[in-house]
């Protein structure tokens, strides 16, 4: 697997995921292409239902794509068979949003964290396994005396740490973090975010960090991708996206980040209306119906274009600029 160290660790090429519903075809992910470099954190931001979690699940092959490819170190994840998929589990893991439903209530902390090691036959039940579990708990910042506890005995933050320790058990190099702090108290969120940064430094991890607001990802991400209705609408370096948003949707998200200023310049952009249904969307700019600066020429399909170096945006108004 060492052949493509130079290229990006993860590469998505024109990824589509459709779900059949009674109303029609739901385009959850509609032509997403992006890459994640080794060692970086890509923040993926968007409101609920925009397809960001679906993208995360496609990446670790919890879902099968309708079309398009997910390359991990040059190997197409979507084409892996059952045995290859099991091997792939040792490279890419996922941390879930809800620390209550993501841990099996019938298993102790030791069983939850050690399960993958047993399934992959890296350890057998015994002292060595227990020591390995304790060291994983140490990595994730859980006191080792909680090893025999059950999830319901732990608070949200500790449960999420157990979920992180479980994801680290197979020593992956890539983690999908699917809104890992949205369900936690704000005071705990910072602790868990710090933990992710520490782990990234120590274990050279690469993250796809999924979140629904920019304030969570702006510090941890190297680059940020903004998603709207299954499409990437803006992609660029974190600072660029935050301080120089080019898409009106990103501007609205940026304006929603809480700030401690009395500046009169700062005005919150309130988007009107709801997200339109992703079932059979019209082939015009997806943001047209809610866009505060829409024009007649926006009523056509829009491409994601590099309008500034390494700063991509999908907006008609930026095409001529």
């Amino acid at each position, binding site marked *: 697997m060492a052949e493509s160290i130079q290229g990006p660790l993860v590469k998505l090429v024109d990824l589509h995921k459709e779900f059949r519903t009674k109303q029609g075809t739901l385009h959850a992910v509609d032509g997403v292409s992006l890459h994640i470099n080794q060692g970086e954190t890509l923040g993926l931001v968007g409101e609920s239902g925009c397809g960001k979690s679906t993208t995360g699940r496609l990446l670790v092959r919890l879902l099968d794509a309708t079309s398009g490819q997910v390359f991990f170190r040059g190997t197409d994840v979507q084409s892996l068979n059952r045995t290859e998929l099991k091997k792939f589990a040792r490279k890419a893991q996922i941390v879930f949003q809800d620390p209550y439903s993501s841990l*099996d209530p*019938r298993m102790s902390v030791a069983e939850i964290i050690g399960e993958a090691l047993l*399934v992959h036959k890296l350890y057998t039940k015994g002292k060595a396994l227990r020591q390995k579990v304790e060291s994983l708990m140490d990595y994730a910042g859980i*006191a080792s005396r909680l090893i025999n506890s*059950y999830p319901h*005995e*732990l608070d949200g933050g500790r449960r999420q740490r157990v979920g992180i320790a479980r994801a680290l058990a197979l020593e992956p190099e890539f983690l999908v973090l699917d809104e890992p702090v949205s369900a936690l108290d704000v005071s705990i969120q910072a602790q868990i975010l710090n933990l992710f940064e520490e782990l990234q430094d120590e274990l050279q991890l690469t993250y796809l960090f999924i979140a629904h607001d920019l304030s969570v990802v702006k510090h941890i991400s190297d680059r940020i991708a903004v998603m709207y209705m299954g499409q990437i609408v803006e992609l660029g370096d974190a600072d660029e996206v935050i301080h120089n948003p080019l898409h009106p949707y990103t501007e609205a998200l940026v304006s929603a980040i809480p700030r401690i200023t009395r500046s009169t310049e700062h005005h919150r952009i309130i988007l009107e209306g709801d997200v339109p249904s992703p079932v059979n969307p019209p082939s015009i700019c997806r943001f047209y119906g809610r866009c505060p600066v829409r024009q007649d020429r926006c009523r056509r399909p829009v491409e994601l274009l590099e309008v500034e170096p390494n700063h991509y945006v999908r907006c008609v108004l930026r095409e001529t600029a």
Partner: protein
Amino acid sequence: MAVRLRNATTGESLPVPPTIGTGRKQRTRFDETWRQFRKNKWAMSGMVLLIFLAFVAIGADFVAPEGLDDQQLGRRFLAPSAEAILGTDHLGRDILSRIIHGSRLSLSIGFITTSIGLVIGGGLGAIAGYYGGSRDQFIMRIMDVILAIPGFIFAVALVTALGPNLTNLMIAVGVNSIPYFARIIRSSVMSVKENEYIEAARALGCSHTWIILRHVIPNAFAPILVQATLRIGDTIIIAAGLSFLGLGAQPPLPEWGAMLSGGRQYLRDAWWMATFPGVAIMFTVLAFNLVGDGLRDALDPRLKN
């Protein structure tokens, strides 16, 4: 071992409260259920009755004053008295002794038939619920067909075809139980598999079989246990009914339904012959239903207080 719970801003280590998870005083789900169950007087009395029945059944040879077929034609149709507490039948056999020996039959019929339904129905239901799609359709439509035939008539037909004896009776009643378990386990599995820990297990590379056995079934267990307990009561009644019709236990076996049937023709002169086996059936089924209802209440988290 360094515990890295740090204050987010200052970086200081945070103390871990010493009360959680010290391993000694763990309140498991079992403790919690038992605590709820104990509060329920009806369920507890059903439980006591079941334990009593189990002891009687196991120790029948020691508890019963006489054997199951000790005929003494000199004391036919004795009314309940000091000599024979529940009276004697048309062949002079002690009815109490026969009921005690019969408890073995009824309880084993209940357990064996329910186990047949639980294992086969449970397996099919788990597959249908976990995989969904065409496998689900195929399995559940077959279950619908079985359910469409009235249970008792289905069992009568099956026993008549296979020949009337206890083994065939248990097969018939067991097959009849399969769809009940398949349905309840299917729906329970379908709700369990929506949990993120199932996805997490898949992401970790666990096989479907491993996930069903290690994650899905343990978490879908509560409704299964309730259904099994209630179902034992039902199968005892169906089995007694079949034996009453002569399709189950054959003479001289003291199956309660068969005893009821044998006493029926003497009902006018010797009411005790049919009454006491009937009472035994009633209390046994009642006990299972009380325990089943109690378990359901104790396991239902919405009723917790």
